[in-house]
């Protein structure tokens, strides 16, 4: 059920066995096993081996398993792929993607590894991270570069640094980039994932930032501490009233479709395909199958 959702993606440093083995118990929709920024240079080998072995042996329950590798141009990126692709995580997150060809290059390498190990081609999804100004400018092309890409994300800290601006609480400097990324994702019918909220003790700040992310169209948000998960879920989860209305719409739609009626009125409001799609999306978020009701 949860795998249909990407409200939260919990970052876990790949070199910390205690944290990695608990990755599936916090209720995050996605666990992001990190081989990149949270791992010191001296620990890169250890993290790569640990993450590979943990994916093989640990039950992450219903949590989607994603691995963030090092950039392919670093001394670590290629080896990361050689270790990680064979254990088939559900997705691989690629940092600092700036152009379409950046993504295609990595996907070609992944395909070679898949072939070498006899793994079905294309099951591992790709999540490019947009972390530079040039990446933002090219984001639509990146998002549409390959069918494997089913989510695109913003790396707020690196992007702020690349833009040479100071990060403010209202994230004003990143506003254009966030909206551009969301639009590129929506245009390609894929997920858009927001950056982390760094202050783990500021619950109110996290809620405000998440509410804004939801409002502008993000599907979910990265998380650096499990304590942040409930707040983000609370924001992204539909309200009881939204669920009630959605059930009514989908039920009416199913009844009308059976009668061969496309557009119909409900409580004085015209119901057409986009309204039904949105209602169905709400039911998905609430884990409700209309046939079970």
């Amino acid at each position, binding site marked *: 059920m949860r795998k249909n959702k990407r409200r939260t993606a919990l970052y876990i440093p790949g070199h910390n066995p205690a944290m990695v*083995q*608990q990755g599936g*118990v*916090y*209720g995050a929709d996605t666990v992001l096993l990190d081989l990149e920024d949270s791992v010191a240079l001296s620990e890169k080998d250890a993290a790569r081996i640990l993450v590979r072995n943990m994916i093989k042996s*640990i*039950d992450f*329950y219903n949590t989607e398993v994603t691995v963030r590798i090092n950039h392919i141009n670093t001394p670590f990126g290629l080896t990361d792929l050689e270790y990680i692709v064979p254990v088939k995580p559900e997705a691989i997150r690629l940092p600092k993607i700036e152009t379409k060809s950046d993504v295609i290059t990595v996907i070609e390498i992944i395909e070679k590894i898949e072939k070498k190990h006899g793994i079905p081609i294309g099951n591992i999804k790709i999540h490019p991270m947009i972390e530079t100004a040039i990446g933002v400018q090219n984001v639509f092309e990146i998002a549409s570069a390959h069918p494997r890409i089913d989510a695109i994300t913003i790396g707020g800290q690196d992007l702020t640094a690349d833009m040479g601006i100071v990060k403010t609480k209202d994230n004003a400097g990143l506003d254009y980039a966030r909206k551009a990324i969301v639009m590129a994702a929506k245009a390609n019918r894929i997920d858009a994932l927001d950056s982390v909220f760094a202050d783990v003790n500021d619950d109110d700040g996290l809620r405000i930032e998440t509410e804004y992310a939801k409002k502008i169209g993000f599907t979910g948000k990265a998380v650096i*501490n*499990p*304590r942040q998960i*409930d707040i983000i879920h609370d924001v992204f989860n539909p309200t009881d009233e939204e669920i009630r209305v959605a059930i009514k719409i989908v039920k009416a739609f199913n009844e009308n479709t059976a009668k061969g009626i496309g557009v119909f009125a409900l409580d004085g409001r015209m119901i057409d395909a986009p309204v039904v799609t949105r209602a169905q999306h709400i039911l998905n978020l609430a*884990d409700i199958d209309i046939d079970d009701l």
Partner: protein
Amino acid sequence: MKNILGRDIPEYIEGIGKLEPFQGAWTKLKKGWMDEPTVASAIKAKLPHQNKLCDSLEEAIIKTNPVNGITVSFHHHLRGGDDIVVKSISILSKLGIKNITLASSSLTSAHDELIPFIQDGTITKIFSSGIRDKLGKAISRGILDIPVIIHSHGGRARAIKTGKIKIDLAIIAAASADCEGNATGSHGKSAFGSIGYSMVDVRYAKQSIVVTDNLVDYPCIPLSIKQSFIDYVVKIDSIGDTSKIATGTTRITKSPMDLRIARLAADVIEHSGYFVNNFSFQVGAGGATLAVAKFIRDKMKKKNITGSFMLGGITSYCVDMLNENLFKALFDVQSFDAAVSNSLLNNKKHIEVPSTLYANPFNCGCLTNKLDIVVLGVLEIDVDFNINVITSSEGYITGASGGHSDTASGAQLAIAVCPSFRGRIPIIKKRVNTIVTPGESIDVLVTERGICVNPKNKELEQRLKKTGLNIRDIHELEKEVDGITGIPEKVKFTDKIIGIVEYRDGTIIDVIRQVKE
């Protein structure tokens, strides 16, 4: 002989007497009228305007004419900050008194200094709810010839009332007292809140001394301890360090794991059928247990539910919920947080209760019998839901029985919360080292890897399954955790029994053996 849980219990132990095996949580109590003797209060007389004040604790103790073999009782309301137990035993030792039975409501890290007094024969027998740190380890290694008797808080009140614990001298640390011995824990520089455990002691003790570091003009109000039970009063510089009462156990945890477990436990409560208006509630302090209160508080506000009473060890979190009118009353036998003293003193809905009213099984109905929901911590739990809160995974005495079995038996819904493993040690076992609370009293176990409902409670299991919570079979979860941690080597014990665990009704639920090192 074996008790109903299959534990080997000797029929007789030298220094303790005949033992009665545990037969089930309510088996003994079913008949209603108990056969055990009832101890009467000591009958004494004082002439008017006599002076009870003594210049020192030593003088007061000497005036009680202590003799070899006496039983001395204390409370543990000052928890890790207590300064009175060791001071009093030192005086008795200096007076050459031997073979003392120490009957403290519990013993904490403040009492490690008792070890030399056990070694030299000053103390030869101990009754306590819990023992920790070096003292727990020393007893586990066999320092006492007579096994320590671990009781629950309700069981202690029962044992005093029936004369199993015959208190010769009760020494009561009070935060404020007057010259006649009226005393309280609710105000004074060392305020520690409720003094509920001593309320029982003074009623049955042959002699009682109140020790305070805040002697106030007569009368000391409220009369938590009443002058009619007190022989002597002593003013000293300090009864202890109140900053060590809380010891971090009353703050809401920031541990993501504890918060996750607490959140799941709150979800269980919400969907249990017991989360309705006028429900009564108890949570312990620290870790995931107290954090459950945080989530329940949010859910009560969201669903517009108000409760009847909160019970037990009271924290400032409980006080906040009372002040928000989420509950009608707090019944406070023990304050887990010195900060609640002000509320106890000034809010008539915050009520100080003696341990006999709190949890004694031998009366017309203690408060735990009226409890709807309790959330309990766990050191170890087994696949039959039996819980150990007294011995560590290495077999040493390290915890406390407290009100665990009292509240679990009384509550309609008893929820145990714990991580499925700590460090590399699995918490869910095939068989726990020591049983304190029988599995029949536990309804649900909540861990981060799944929620297990006791099979006795099918209806609850069905209800929770419908909510989408991750309900699992406890045997399956135990196997999964063993797969992650590996199965630890079994702790080896000698044949020597170093402790017996009394169930609240006085029957023996388990024994603790000496760790083989």
